[in-house]
């Protein structure tokens, strides 16, 4: 630890985080609860003080709660929004010290070592936190001690400050549950007569660890500073958005492009630092009349080169209606992908880049998923011997296997008149009378029994390459299990 400086930890507990969050947005007088479907019933997830005073408690079925308290108001709980709110609080708490972590789903833990004097001492700092949170409509309990465990115990069971090195005195009279142990363990301890942390600290350690495992003593030691415990501060997730506000509105395409270039350079610098590339961009142009327009750009490949992205933006920005002028540009990378730094080599891949840019540009017109490429697949079924994949989301592959001669075009099977296992001498296909000149085959292809394909219900197929005297070279097949002749493709 820091030389001569004792570590100090503050723990904040928001006992009514979820309901406080909802009530902040829309204050409601009287009992109020948030409900969530748990264990097959709609149960109380969080409640305000009025509701608690009426005798409601957490986990109670909502139907019962309504019976107790007819004027109860309720909302659906949204735990993920609560989590977002808590991470906002975590960001706010960095105003006190830089080392702030989250504790469970409803608390924060801060390492305030060396920061308390900036707020006039620990007492003043804690009071400041309380007042500010109270003003924001949040109920909070604060504990301050030498260790994370002790601070947590104080925040949850006896608000206050444990002076330096006096953790045991402060925790002595608290119940054993304040050690962050499981409920079943705390019940078992109470049955043994160890009700308070003070009792536990005096009890012999060996039988305890034999009976309860190492966890219990670890928690006790962590609270009493015999074992260290780290606080993990959470890093800010990188934010890929930049904006430019202008003193005077602009309207010319060249001006907007110049603004977009500035933003792109900034954004790409950020992306480069994180080794990321952008896949989807959204540019919001705010006009002086407070209306705004959005231009979205999807790229065929994750990029972070401002010049290349800018040239792709050009067409879309030209379509924007500037009205009386645009006074704010905001550029956000809505979808990013990791793009590791690559070694530059003397073999240029300029062609590949320009093709990818072309795909991005065409993608803005027809949709990126409509631009496709063929990938090899392992199947003898003609229509499954390749995969059609979106070009933007796949890499080309050259692992093609040259099997038998295949037609250059394929179409859904078209029936023709014919009987017998040999190709018909004369037949009509698409109203063209054709005469067989030479037939090569058969090549028997069996359906893939592990895939249920409707088109292959007719069973085996005997494929024939039929060259007609009229010139056309067709790919015919005969289905012996279900006699019939079909045309499925045409050769070069």
């Amino acid at each position: 630890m820091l030389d001569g400086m004792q570590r100090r930890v503050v723990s904040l507990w928001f006992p009514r985080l979820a309901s406080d969050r909802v009530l902040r947005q829309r204050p409601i007088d009287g009992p109020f609860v948030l409900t969530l479907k748990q264990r097959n019933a709609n149960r109380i997830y969080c409640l305000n003080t009025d509701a608690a005073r009426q005798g409601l408690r957490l986990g109670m079925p909502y139907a019962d709660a309504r019976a107790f308290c007819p004027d109860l108001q309720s909302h659906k709980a949204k735990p993920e929004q609560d989590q977002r709110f808590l991470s906002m609080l975590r960001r706010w708490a960095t105003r006190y010290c830089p080392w702030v972590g989250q504790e469970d789903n409803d608390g924060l833990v801060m390492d305030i070592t060396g920061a308390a004097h900036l707020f006039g001492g620990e007492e003043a700092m804690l009071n400041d936190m309380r007042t500010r949170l109270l003003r924001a409509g949040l109920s909070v309990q604060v504990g301050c001690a030498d260790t994370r465990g002790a601070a947590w115990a104080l925040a949850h069971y006896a608000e206050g400050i444990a002076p330096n090195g006096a953790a045991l005195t402060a925790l002595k009279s608290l119940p054993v549950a304040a050690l962050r142990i499981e409920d079943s363990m705390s019940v078992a301890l109470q049955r043994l007569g160890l009700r308070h942390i003070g009792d536990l600290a005096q009890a012999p350690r060996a039988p305890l660890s034999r009976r309860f495992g190492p966890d219990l003593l670890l928690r006790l030691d962590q609270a009493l500073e015999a074992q260290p415990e780290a606080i993990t501060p959470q890093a800010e997730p990188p934010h890929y958005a930049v904006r430019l506000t202008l003193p005077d509105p602009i309207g010319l395409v060249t001006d907007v492009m110049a603004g977009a270039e500035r933003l792109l350079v900034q954004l790409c610098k950020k992306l480069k630092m994180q080794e990321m590339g952008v896949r989807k961009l959204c540019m919001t142009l705010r006009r002086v009349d407070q209306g705004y327009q959005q231009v979205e750009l999807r790229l065929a490949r994750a990029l972070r080169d401002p010049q290349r992205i800018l040239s792709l933006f050009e067409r879309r920005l030209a379509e924007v209606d500037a009205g009386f002028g645009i006074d704010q540009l905001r550029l956000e990378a809505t979808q990013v992908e990791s793009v590791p730094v690559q070694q530059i080599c003397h073999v240029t891949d300029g062609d590949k880049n320009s093709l990818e840019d072309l795909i991005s540009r065409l993608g803005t017109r027809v949709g990126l998923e409509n631009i496709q490429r063929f990938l090899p697949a392992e199947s003898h079924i003609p229509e499954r011997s390749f995969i059609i994949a979106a070009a933007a989301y796949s890499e080309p592959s050259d692992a093609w296997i040259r099997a038998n001669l295949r037609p250059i075009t394929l179409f859904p099977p078209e029936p023709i008149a014919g009987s017998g296992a040999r190709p018909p001498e004369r037949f009509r296909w698409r109203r063209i009378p054709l005469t067989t000149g030479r037939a090569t085959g058969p090549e028997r292809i069996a359906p893939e029994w592990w895939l249920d394909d409707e088109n292959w219900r007719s069973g085996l197929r005997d494929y024939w390459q039929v060259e007609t005297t009229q010139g056309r070279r067709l790919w015919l097949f005969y289905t012996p299990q279900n006699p019939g002749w079909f045309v499925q493709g045409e050769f070069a």
Partner: protein
Amino acid sequence: MQDLAFFPPTKARTHEVCGAGAYMFAFTLAAQLADPVIWVREGWDTRQVNPTGFLDFISPSALTICNTEDQTETLAVAEEALRSGAVSLVVLQLNKPIGLTEGRRLQLAARDGQTTGLAIIPEGMGSNAAETRWRCAPVFDPKDSTLQMWELIKNKSGTLGVWHARWDAASRRLFMVSPAGK
């Protein structure tokens, strides 16, 4: 015997091809020009090119397919691809005749991007703006199964002609000779 003065047709222009052998013509042209190729087709068309079939002409990884909604979109995509110069060949499948304006725009785009364009058209629906127009039909030959008859039926800067064309898969070469007795 070899007569390759007419094939491949002029670079940086748009050409047309019709007939049953149009697909082979397109792939032969793709094989003659360098990689990459973009193929613009309408999404509803059930007839599709088969990568295991054109393996003898070009590698399927060199081909990018673009599905469009209608012919207007096909033309717009083709124009953009031609102008970009990122590909060596743009093949577009048309179902309706195109006007002089559209044809001319394709020519200008091809010239700007130094890219060859090839429109596969239904028989008799050519545009006057095309540089050349070919009619290709497979021919029955007891000995050979790739023989085709290629007719040059329109040429803005030269004479017309008829050839027998044969693609040799092993050497990836086109053999183009005047038919006997012509």
